[in-house]
């Protein structure tokens, strides 16, 4: 190809790009986007699945130690956090339902509540962890190392699993903040709300994992 021809064609492309409907963005595959998200959620479940497997192995190996260690966890705070996350899933679903009906303000309100609940969860988690730290219960602490192996592992799992989950809450909250921005700028609207819907799916997963963590650590005695 001669270089002049290339230049001519490239000018044409440059012109073409000025037009809003460049071919890459003309059609959006909502169904495809959802397949992608579900596959991603699947990998998230497997990520936690490895930890659940470890929990199962050690629970069988050290069942008595696990029961003793679990009694020191704060059931009240755990329950409040469960209620908070469940409610946040509801407000998340409501936010999507609102934008499906074109009610932007309502959708923003529900999304803001979801983010609020996420923050509340993290604050409570913070107090729960710091209380444990004050009692000298944290990985590699002298207090913990004096306890039987089973209890050391229980807390090892407790901190890594709830820690990884809390990390997911933080990521989810940041994601929702972006969605808030998109809603505000009308990038998410009645015809195109796939981003919000996928973020909602992610948020439900975060909720769902907690639904399994809660009984495993707080309820089984």
């Amino acid at each position, binding site marked *: *190809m*001669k270089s002049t*021809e*290339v230049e001519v*064609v*490239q000018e*044409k*492309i*440059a012109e*073409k*790009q000025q037009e809003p409907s460049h*071919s*890459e963005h003309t059609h959006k*595959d909502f*169904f*495809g986007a959802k*397949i*992608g998200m579900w*596959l*991603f959620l*699947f*990998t*998230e479940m*497997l*990520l*936690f*699945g*490895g*930890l659940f*497997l*470890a929990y199962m*192995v*050690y629970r069988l*190996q*050290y069942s008595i130690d696990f029961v003793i260690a679990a009694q020191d966890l704060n059931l009240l705070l755990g329950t409040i956090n469960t209620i908070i996350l469940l409610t946040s899933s509801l407000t998340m679903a409501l936010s999507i339902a609102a934008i499906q009906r074109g009610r932007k303000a309502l959708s923003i309100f529900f999304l803001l509540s979801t983010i609020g609940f996420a923050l509340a969860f993290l604050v409570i988690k913070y107090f729960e962890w710091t209380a444990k730290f004050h009692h000298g219960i944290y*990985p*590699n602490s002298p207090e913990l*190392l004096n306890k*039987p*192996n*089973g209890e*050391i*592992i229980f*807390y*090892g*799992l407790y*901190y*890594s699993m709830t820690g*990884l989950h809390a990390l997911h809450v933080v990521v989810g909250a940041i994601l929702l903040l972006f969605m808030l921005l998109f809603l505000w700028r009308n990038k998410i609207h009645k015809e195109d709300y796939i981003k919000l819907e996928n973020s909602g799916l992610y948020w439900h997963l975060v909720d769902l994992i907690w639904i399994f963590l809660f009984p495993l650590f707080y309820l089984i005695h």
Partner: protein
Amino acid sequence: MSNETNSATQLSYLDYKPKKGIWAWLLTTDHKRIGLLYLIGMMIFFWVAVGIGFVMKLEMLTPDQTVVDAQTYNSLFTLHGLIMIFLFIIPGLPAVFGNFFLPIQIGAHDVAFPRLNLLSWYLYIIGGLFALVSLHLQGGPIDTGWTFYVPYSIRTTTNVILPLLGAFILGFSSILTGLNFVTTVHRLRAPGMTFFRLPLFVWALYATAWIQVVATPIVGITILLVVIERVLHIGIFDPALGGDPLLFQHLFWIYSHPAVYIMILPAMGVVSEIIPTFARRTIFGYKVIAFSSLAIALIGYFVWAHHMFTSGMSETARFVFSLLTFLVAVPSGVKVFNWVATLYKGSIELRAPLIYILMFIFLFSIGGLTGLVLGSLATNVHVTDTYFVVAHFHYVMFGGTAIVFFAAMHYWFPKMFGKMYNEKIAIWATPFIFIGFNMLYFTMFILGYQGMPRRYWSYLPEYQELHIISTIGSWILIFGLVIMFSNLIFGLIKGRRADSNPWGGVTLEWQIPSPPPHENFEKIPVIDHGPYDFERFKNENKNEIDRS
């Protein structure tokens, strides 16, 4: 070429530059350019790892110190494994040729998530940099072996955390590529492109993508746990605190055995592309090959513990895993027989890509059959953790995947760059590679059988003779590789123009210009025939076949 420039969509992907200079590459969402970006990164890592392998073999020339000390040797085999596995063989074919040809072969403009695709490349590079940066930090390079077995990986004072995080990031990149490909195959096939009209390379990539999605998260969390264990001492893998090191091995191999099929399945897909093209006939047993890919993906998930026969497991578990290991050899065998049957009575044209493929069939068969020796309990106990394992692994991974990677480079080179390499030199490189390879690795089978343990820096003088042959083999092999790569690079610079279909292939990538236009197809094609319908194309392509 001039009649192909009448519209913007027809401009070749190499000439289409929506952004200036380097940004046209670094910010591209074009699957073809991303494929090339991967190729560049991969070639750099590959040659680094080849260099390390060269030094390792040089060290093995004498029973005691030759060029490096023991600690350096430990780091060398770790890095060689890390780089080759996580940065070359696992991402290899899917990231380079999958990215480039999957959308074209199914008749699409791009993958389902082009921006995610670019993100995967950045994650790949960042992961690789993590591994490289760790070499220069205090504490020295990692020396755990690429398997990171605990408790040693918790105790060693070398830099373990950075390479581990690097592997985690690479896993993330691999997952994103996998989910991108699964979605692409489901959503973007051209009208009429049913699942049973997909080229077999696409089938293989599809099966691979599922393994990437389903298996990689497990190693992700396992690696994270080792990092957490090192930083916080949570006890999960630390026997001193009640943890179980065997649990690590299980979690690690639950991913890393399926990962072996991530490495080999795409290669099998490429073989199924190249053989019909050069035998000028449709593939024998299309559906069986397609399903055997899925079967390998599925069964491959249930054989992980055959890496742990001597680690400590119940007799029943070992028996079951051994049996399942034999089962996974069945679909692989089915494929080999189908390929050979395709060649039978075909009108074979012995061009460079096919020669590499024939080399693959020979080497991979040796690798596969010695895999059965390792899979059966009685012999496994005898040869486990010896050079036998090293030889087996290199026969399937180097003789299998890497050789097919070279075949793919030659097969698709004219399509990717629109230029031809020198065929004679490409063929002349193969005997060096073949002889060097077998000298290098077949001696290792014998060494392993005689009891030479893997990963040892020094050895008994009785082994020296074979080690010398092996080391000389490594020189011949590298010489062959240098010829092959220089020939390709030379072809890239000075090669003459290739036309759109130099081999007379019939899959979709051969029906568009070389190099492909930015949008692949001006109009999405409508498919009404199977992928290897040679009768149909016979007359059209007869005159175009290039016999230089």
